[in-house]
Structures are given as C-alpha cells and as structure tokens.
C-alpha cells in the first residue's frame, strides 16, 4: 500500500483504527483520505485496509 506517498507492505489485513494505533497516530487528531475519499472517523474501526490502498493521513498538531 501507499501511505503519504511512501510504499509500505501490509502483511495482513488490519482495520484503519488498528493501523493508526500501531503507527503512532492519535485518532482524534487525524484526517484520513483512502483512495481519494475522506473516511469518517466513526468508521476507522470497521474500514479494513488492503495492500492495494492509498492512504493520505494528516496528523494535526496544536497551535494557532
């Protein structure tokens, strides 16, 4: 799969929620586009990722 422009091998199917957790993202601070479509945050636990997916993950930091 491709994550933020970089190739990454997905060894076994995981939910988006699990992927975010294991890669250090805080789910309350991200926006995720999967194959060009924004994913509602409530669907993170049920969206299953495949090795063919392209993800864009924006992890926001505070300040403004």
């Amino acid at each position, binding site marked *: 799969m491709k994550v933020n422009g970089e190739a990454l091998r997905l060894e076994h199917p995981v939910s988006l929620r699990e992927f975010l957790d294991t890669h250090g993202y805080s789910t*309350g601070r991200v*926006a995720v586009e999967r194959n060009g479509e*924004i994913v509602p945050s409530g669907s993170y636990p049920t969206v299953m990722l495949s090795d063919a997916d392209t993800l864009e993950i*924006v992890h*926001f*930091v*505070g*300040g*403004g």
Partner: protein
Amino acid sequence: MTKHDYDAMLIERHGQRVFETLSRAYVGIAGLGGLGSNIAMMLARSGVGHLLLVDFDKVEPSNLNRQHYIVSHLGLQKTEALKSLILQANPFIHLDTIDTYITEDNASDIFSGCDLVCEAFDKAENKAMLINTLLLQNPQLTVLSGSGMAGYGSSNTIRTEKVMSRLYLCGDKTSGIESGISLMAPRVQICAAHEANMALRLLLGIEEV
C-alpha cells in the same frame, strides 16, 4: 475616502480581473486567534469582498503576543474586536460574524455558503474535527488548515502542501504546543500568510501550491 476611491486603489495595484474576482469571493475563517485574526486582516487588505468570522471567545491578555488585537480590545468578543480592526483597514468589506463554538453539529451549516474555509483553531482535536466535518459534509468546499508553527525555529520549514483533494495544509507539521513550545508572533503570522496566500491563489483559479 469613498468606496470608489478604495476600489480604484485596489484596481491600480492588482488589476481589474484580480480585483473583480476577489471582490466577489466569500471566505470563512474558523477561529480568530493568532492564525485567524491575521488571515482575516490579510484577506481584507487584499480586497476579498466578503468574510465570515467565527469565534466564541473574548480577547484576553494572553492573546496579545501573537494575535492582531490591542489592549483596548481586552474583554470584547473576538468577532467584534476583529471587525473593528478590519474596517479600519478596509471600510467597504462585507463582514459577517458569528459568536459560537464550532462543533461537528454546526460547522457544515455555518460555512455552507463559503467559497473557501480557513481553519484557524488552536487545538489539534478541533482542527481534525473541522477538517473531517467539512470534507465529509460540504463536498463543494476546499479547506485550508494550519498545523505546526510554534516556537522560533527556522521560518523556512513552514510550507504549503496540497495533502488531499480538497485540503491544503500550511505549517511545518511538527511544532505543536503539545510539546511545550509556545507560540510566537512571527511563525504564527508566517503560517497565517501561507493560508491567506493559498486562499488568494485558489480564488484566482490556481490550485498548485
């Protein structure tokens, strides 16, 4: 000074096409702190015709180190304080203000009429909430966001990137207040200027960063 004088000043500097396009534009600013107060001032000076300013908060002393407010604004609603400042720079702009806390339940309605929305919140969770809500519920909207501008690190790490089909991200993406670095005027204003300039580019039909 009349509206005719003001418009003539803008046309002389920007040209007729840019003037007319920006005059017709309607941009929403979500949050009127360090990012939002500066973005709004820059868009107003550039001749954007119509702004929607949204914030629930009042001006307090801790705002003065980076936000556009001055001592006489302390205690005023940010919407009112910013409106008074903007009108001194551009007396003919059309300003709408809403004093409310933006949530996932009201964001879509508040910004539904805008051409663009500039996210200008302080907390990372609120930034994520607004971006997710608007990208999901307002399919015609393009959104600009600021993330990573704390401290006094190099100016040159603050960039504009198109990170999703309708999301532009400005900032260095890492310097957050969570790490204990405080916000200072220069980098906050650099980031605000990135958002404002990308907003102008999009309004003028340019999608590249």
